[in-house]
């Protein structure tokens, strides 16, 4: 089961060698066996999954199956799914059953892909280790004493461990790519606006973007075909013609210009990661690509800009969690202010509160210009850097994360160290560009290393082509954790 890609499952179903119900039962059994160790899922509901699988089988029997009909998928618990507990990893929403489907969930339902459950995540997607989840940390399938990365840690871990063939994730500063790297899978963050944010619980609206997490680039392309598309309910959703993201997968890489930003290969990068990325570059040269050095001079400022803008938006986005209409409300209070204060003090975890406080501060009267406006300026400079770089190359390549999976608790008390986990990924969100992570080797302890590709705007198909060609030539993506 660990070896299954979406393509292979699709073939099994199409050939009548398995039914969706059978597939789902197998995955559910594996979840039941391994989730107590990994804690990758917050909610599993076999009845719901099997009902959807049943419907998918009926659809196939009626001759109306699409390529992915009947193939199950897990959803990050940030996506509202009708009738499902949708917690966003928080005590604040620990009792919230969504009355509606996110656009992404609608799309997967329409494709006939049964939901295996809702995956664990950092609380409100704020974290890089999954340790901020109210439901406890997810364990890395390669070493259960280590973190899976975050915030889409549950999705990354469940795909890596074969609890699901694919999962949805969201990426605000690296939340798809960094856990994909730390768990040895492939994940893609699309261009901002390609996937609708409707029904995706907001962290930082101008940065959030949903995307696929799977074993291969090809699987990601299939999933993106389902997820992407205009949605009138999201004003930042882009109205463009539907693309086939698989269209360029098989193109040879001869003539491809790969940009290597010198800022991504300096200090702070661990030796094993640097070596694996260098090896990947060598592999690409063998595949006919040429490399050019590019520069992203302002990228060193991206973490600072991000930790102004994202908390600013979050402090406002999370105001709706006030105990009035849904979600957690403190049991005892003496008046309205008391109810607000206790509800939010008890309902949010420490990291969320830290970011709400930072965000409130930077938006305050007298500080707004110095922080928020300044950070917006940096954001433009960072985007300009990329625009400049893409004049010389087709895709940018570098490490996804500065190191492999760290130990649970290792950075939990040092937020700045934790924030630096996303140093290579954050600039991509600030610029609104597409990016992905794919496995490119292992460190001395057998932990996976991620290679990051960054495409130009709407360059997903090209980026997937570059990743797919690498995966045809290597087998890092096919390795699976043993011993769990």
């Amino acid at each position, binding site marked *: 089961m660990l070896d299954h890609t979406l393509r292979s499952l699709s073939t099994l179903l199409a050939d009548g060698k398995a039914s969706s119900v059978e597939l789902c039962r197998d995955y559910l059994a594996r979840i039941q066996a391994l989730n107590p160790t990994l804690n990758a899922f917050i909610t599993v509901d076999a009845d719901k999954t099997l009902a959807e699988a049943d419907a998918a089988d009926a659809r196939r029997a009626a001759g109306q199956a699409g390529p992915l009909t009947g193939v199950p998928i897990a959803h990050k618990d940030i996506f*509202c799914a009708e009738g499902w507990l949708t917690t966003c990893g928080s005590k604040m929403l620990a009792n919230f059953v969504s009355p509606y489907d996110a656009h992404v969930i609608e799309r997967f339902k329409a494709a006939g892909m049964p939901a295996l459950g809702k995956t664990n995540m950092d609380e409100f997607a704020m974290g890089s280790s999954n340790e901020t989840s109210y439901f406890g940390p997810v364990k890395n399938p390669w070493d259960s004493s280590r973190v899976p990365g975050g915030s889409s840690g549950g999705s990354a871990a469940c795909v890596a461990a074969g609890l699901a063939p694919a999962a949805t994730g969201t990426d605000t500063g690296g939340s798809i790519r960094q856990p994909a790297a730390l768990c040895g899978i492939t994940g893609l963050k699309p261009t901002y606006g390609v996937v609708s944010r409707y029904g995706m619980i907001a962290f930082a609206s101008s940065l959030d973007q949903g995307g696929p997490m799977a074993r291969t680039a090809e699987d990601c392309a299939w999933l993106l075909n389902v997820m992407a598309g205009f949605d009138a309910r999201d004003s930042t959703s882009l109205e463009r013609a539907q693309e086939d993201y698989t269209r360029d997968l098989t193109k040879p890489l001869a003539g491809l210009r790969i940009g290597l930003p010198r800022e991504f290969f300096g200090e702070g990068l661990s030796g094993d990661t640097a070596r694996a990325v260098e090896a990947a570059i060598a592999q690409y040269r063998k595949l006919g690509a040429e490399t050019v050095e590019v520069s992203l001079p302002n990228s060193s400022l991206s973490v600072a800009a991000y930790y102004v803008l994202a908390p600013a*938006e979050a402090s406002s986005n999370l105001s709706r969690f006030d105990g009035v209409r849904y979600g957690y409300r403190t049991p005892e209070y003496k008046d309205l202010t008391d109810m607000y204060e206790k509800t939010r003090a008890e309902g949010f975890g420490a990291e969320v509160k830290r970011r709400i406080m930072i965000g409130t501060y930077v938006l*305050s009267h007298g500080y707004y210009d110095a922080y928020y406006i300044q950070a917006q300026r940096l954001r433009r400079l960072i985007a300009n850097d990329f625009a400049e770089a893409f004049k010389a190359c087709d895709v940018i390549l570098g490490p996804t994360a500065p190191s492999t999976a760290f130990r649970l608790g290792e950075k939990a008390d040092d937020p700045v160290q934790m924030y630096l986990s996303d140093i290579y990924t954050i600039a991509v969100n600030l610029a609104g560009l597409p990016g992905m992570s794919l496995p490119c080797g292992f460190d001395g302890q057998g932990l996976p290393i991620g290679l990051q590709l960054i495409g130009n705007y709407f360059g997903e198909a090209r980026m997937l082509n570059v990743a797919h060609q690498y995966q045809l030539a290597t087998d890092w993506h096919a390795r699976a954790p043993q011993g769990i």
Partner: protein
Amino acid sequence: MQWETVIGLEVHTQLTTQSKIFSGASIAFGAEPNTQACQVDIALPGVLPVLNKGAVERAIRFGLAIGAKLNRTNVFARKNYFYPDLPKGYQISQYELPIVEGGHLSIQVGDEEKTIRITRAHLEEDAGKSLHEDFHGMTGIDLNRAGTPLLEIVSEPDMRSAKEAVAYARALHTLVTWIGICDGNMQEGSFRVDANVSVRPRGQAEFGTRREIKNLNSFRFLEQAIDYEVRWQIEQIEDGHRIQQATVLFNPDTGETRAMRSKEDAHDYRYFPDPDLLPVRLDEDWIEVVKAGLPELPEQKQARYREELGLSAYDAGTLTASRAMAEYFEATLASLPSPASGRGAGGEGSAKLAANWIMGDLSAALNKAELDITASRISARQLAGLLARIQDGTLSGKLAKQVFEAMWNEGGEADAIIEAKGLKQVSDAGAIEPLIDEVLAANPKSVEEFRAGKEKAFNALVGQVMKASKGKANPAQVNELLRKKLG
């Protein structure tokens, strides 16, 4: 010391869209609590706003009507604060780049015309309602109103008395209903006024410290509240106190204003551009289309009434108090055969005649019945039928009033009423002369006095002849025939 009052108004007008500004829910008034609040309005996790184009179109209409600058790029921002009837914990409004900037409105106070400058007008969403009754120590929340589109219209501090403030508020009310962007229903909260009031020694250039009176929902309360507030502020200053910037509420029962919160408690709203909404870009073609669809505006109509119809500024102002009134007037005029203006053979022009009747008898009847002119029991065409009979001499003014009354009470066309009630004016000398003879015979004393030079006696004789004709004799003709007989 002589004091000068300085007033600026912020008016929240509810726009006449079908649905809310950022969701598809209806904004109809009076529905059961929370039945017109969709998942966007109640701010479920994950929902997003989508701007209602109709609200933008109405703001453009307003901007064009006041000669303002329309910001081709305008931006929605979040105004952050916690309140139970504010579901998202922020209100989506416009802050640094509103859709409408500048512009002005003319007002008339007594004989004086004055121009009030408008600072800006911006789009925003309304909050829900907190219901403090019937919940036994708890508060109920009704989110039907949450997300209702508002255009907040902010004036410069250009008004110098409560009367001017009321005149401005009325002119604004007329304009927004005139161009159809607001239904103007003040009871239902469609037009709510906040007044910023300060006083300063006459001649002083700087403004005094202002206090803001919130949520005045009638013109009468607006005037009362400002008058009270001005007296209170002057008293405070004369007693040696300083005015503290504050938000105050007006209590209609006591006629007093009372501080709600001081500047120290003022929120830091932490405005920032809403990342869920792209900047709004106004397309030139669209603006042109909206402009082409605008009706003739009150000020334009007033000028035309004065210049082309020869009406006074007062009449022109009164007839354009509402678009319905102006339309009624114009429909009446259109149904009259005589020329609208001029003082030709028919005496006053049709315009003045129609104006007098609409502003006089018709308005009185409407007021008495508490009816709007759109619900008038006498249509413009009916009224024109009546006025035509005045112009052709069939009816005297007095008879016309009787026809009007019958028409109001029982309906029907003027000619039918005249026929049925026999109210036709008698202009036949053969019929009037015998009456004159009778009157002269019966009043030798008056005849004597008239011959002795007393003009008053003549009037008494005319009155007697009119009485003898039961008011039907043509007064001009009675005059003429009587003089002939006595001469």
